[in-house]
């Protein structure tokens, strides 16, 4: 292009070129009084600035990649390119889930929630049981009493030389675990303290106190302390019955002429809280009670009755037969807890390999829906070898009885061969079910594996001879289903289906009755090993109540383990 042609072309283009003035231009001219040329200069500069600031050019495709690539090594660039491609492909890659996945999620979640609540419930129950057990141990020692100790109070008392006005207090102690025999003289207020009669330790841990108060021919026997619960009072009528409880304090009238009297004990047995009795006896607990003019031992020398009472049985009235009892005036029998010899607690580990058999039957409650379309029958099942293991805690209740609990895992594996008989064509006639003559019988094998969390509660009766022991155990076990898997083989289609987490048709909670005979050997003082046969049987089906089958497994096993006693 020549120069003149270029200028003409430029002019032609410039002729039609218009620029819209900026918004404030008119104001600048009129208000500020600027000259047109100045306004035009300023406006042009502003316009140029404005246009320049907004000016952008879209770079050619791949420019950034080029710059970016230039700043990196070739290897980095290749990796980046690779990542970019893979990422682009993956970005919109969707896969449609199979049908029923959402339902599976809902069921799985519900099972998890149910299991969580069940675990919380069991934990709370266990905690409550343990707390109750300890509370019972510390507060209900009477229930454990099984040995009787006697305190005889007679006129031939060792402290009988005390003056009638003297307040006699005798401490009766015995290192012998059997009878503690002591006689004390009775005056107005005789207090017999029984200090831990059975304890071998130097410092007695248990204190019992008997207070006997005579007030105007009213003979009052009181018990104090937690450990000794005594028979209250005496009676001269052999047929008299006492209603004695730990908290009762009896006030009884004695026949001064000895046995054979006619007084009815029941008539004279009154509560301490009775206003009438209170007025009659005054302050029963007072140690400063007024002395009786006549010595008690003369009055009641013929009273040779023994009253045996505890909280758990009806009191008995017995006659003293032995002369050695020195013609007692009053005999009070105490019952104290029999001392548990040796350790009370034990922890241990056990394992039980066991052989499983099952008892099957069709679920009658669901026979309608099950048998309307098909009949399921377990044709055969193979015995399977299973295993159970866990931790145990043992608490002695007495020298012979123990309570055993703990926690364990139990794995149950079994194979079932199921024959599902659909309605035969003849049976189906008259219904809207169409059945091919060849397809109404189907056989499938089920290899099922169930995992349970087990909590046993057993009572044990044991006998020990030196280093050996023999125990019989019986009780219940609670099983919580943790996991279930099944491999199902369909003989017709030759398909194998693996069902993981097949908890839906299974019972979450299964209870077992279990029993065992266990031989124990103590190689060390506190350590024992044990072994013995066990038998367990399910009390409910492992399948859900709505399931077409009911299966109650039972096991023959050999339990092995060791315990540490403390």
């Amino acid at each position, binding site marked *: 292009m020549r120069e003149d042609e270029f200028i003409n072309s430029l002019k032609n283009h410039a002729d039609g070129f218009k620029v819209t003035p900026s918004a404030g231009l008119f104001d600048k001219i009129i208000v500020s009084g600027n000259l047109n040329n100045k306004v035009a200069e300023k406006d042009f500069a502003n316009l140029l600035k404005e246009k320049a600031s907004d000016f952008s050019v879209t770079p050619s495709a791949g420019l950034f990649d080029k710059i970016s690539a230039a700043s990196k090594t070739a290897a980095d660039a*290749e*990796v980046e*390119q*690779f*990542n970019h*491609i*893979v*990422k682009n*492909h*993956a970005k*919109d*890659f*969707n*896969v*449609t*889930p*199979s049908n029923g*996945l*959402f339902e*599976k*999620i*809902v069921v*799985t*979640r519900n099972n*998890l929630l149910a299991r969580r609540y069940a675990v919380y419930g069991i934990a709370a129950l266990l905690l409550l049981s343990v707390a109750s057990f300890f509370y019972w141990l510390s507060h209900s020692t009477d229930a454990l009493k099984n040995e009787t100790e006697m305190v005889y109070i007679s006129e031939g008392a060792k402290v009988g030389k005390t003056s009638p006005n003297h307040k006699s207090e005798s401490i009766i102690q015995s290192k012998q675990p059997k009878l503690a025999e002591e006689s004390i003289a009775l005056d107005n207020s005789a207090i017999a303290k029984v200090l831990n009669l059975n304890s071998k330790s130097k410092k007695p841990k248990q204190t019992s106190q008997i207070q006997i108060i005579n007030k105007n021919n009213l003979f009052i026997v009181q018990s104090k302390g937690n450990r000794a619960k005594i028979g209250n009072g005496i009676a001269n009528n052999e047929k008299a019955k006492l209603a004695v409880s730990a908290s009762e304090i009896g006030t009884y009238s004695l026949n001064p002429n000895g046995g054979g009297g006619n007084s009815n004990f029941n008539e004279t047995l009154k509560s301490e809280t009775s206003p009438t009795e209170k007025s009659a006896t005054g302050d029963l607990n007072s140690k400063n009670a007024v002395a009786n003019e006549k010595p008690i031992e003369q009055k009641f020398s013929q009273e040779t009755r023994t009253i045996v009472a505890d909280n758990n049985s009806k009191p008995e009235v017995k006659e003293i037969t032995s002369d050695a009892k020195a013609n007692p005036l009053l005999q009070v029998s105490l019952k104290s807890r029999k001392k548990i010899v040796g350790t009370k607690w034990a922890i241990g580990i056990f394992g039980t390999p066991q052989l499983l058999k099952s008892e099957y039957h069709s679920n009658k409650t669901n026979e309608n829906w099950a048998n309307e379309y098909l009949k399921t029958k377990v044709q055969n099942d193979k015995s399977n070898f299973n295993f159970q293991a866990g931790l145990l805690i043992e608490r002695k209740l007495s020298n012979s009885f123990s309570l055993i609990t703990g926690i364990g895992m139990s794995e149950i594996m079994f194979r079932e061969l199921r024959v599902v008989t659909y309605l035969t064509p003849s049976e189906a006639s008259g219904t809207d079910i169409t059945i091919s003559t060849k397809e109404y019988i189907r056989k499938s094998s089920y290899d099922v594996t169930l995992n349970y969390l087990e909590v046993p509660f057993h009572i044990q009766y044991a006998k020990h001879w030196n280093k050996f022991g023999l125990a019989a155990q019986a009780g219940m076990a609670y099983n919580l289903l943790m996991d279930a898997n099944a491999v199902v083989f369909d003989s017709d289609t030759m398909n194998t289906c693996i069902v*993981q987490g097949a908890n839906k048709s299974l019972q979450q909670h299964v209870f077992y009755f279990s029993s065992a005979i266990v031989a124990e050997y103590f190689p060390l003082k506190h350590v024992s090993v044990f072994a013995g046969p066990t038998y367990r049987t399910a009390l409910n089906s492992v399948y859900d109540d709505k399931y077409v089958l009911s299966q109650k497994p039972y096991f023959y096993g050999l339990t092995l383990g060791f315990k540490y006693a403390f």
Partner: protein
Amino acid sequence: MPLITIAFKKELISTEIELIDACLRQETSAQRVLFDTYSAKFLGVCYRYAPSQADAEDILQEAFVKIFNKLDNFRRESSLETWMTRIVINTAISHLRLNKKHHNESDLEVIENNYSFSNEQFNHIDAKILMNAIQELPDNYRVVLNMFAIEGYSHKEIAEELGIPEVTSRSHFFRAKSILEKKLLNINKMKLAK
């Protein structure tokens, strides 16, 4: 649940917030909507990590159980999809960690990286084929490839997440890349041959 009801629910639960609130109220219909909306995308994510579709569905199932259980922990600072994607990926990683099959590296084929990789060649490859090829990779390689190439983790982060040395993460990635390139080139060749 009938589709009409779901459609109705979809309209009803118009916003993400409403959907979350309904899920928090344990409304199964809302959970269904959430599942229907994201399941295909998330299954695609699981598919990349899992050795098979069945495994991928297991992971998805586990992830959705977690999502429904932990939805009250969602602080709404990010989008719901981002939060859920993170759960899905974490579930996939922990799932693979649990079912870890230890590959002895010396047993694996030593591959020389002689394969050039270009946009042109791979633009022709279908996403499904690429994903299948990724799925066929050994577990360790597949996870590292996914985390590095697609999720954008650094090798340091991958090393921390999987409990492996950083150098192992790098070597896993390069081996995965090499295997993948080889596979895809073979597929391309077969295509051309046809």
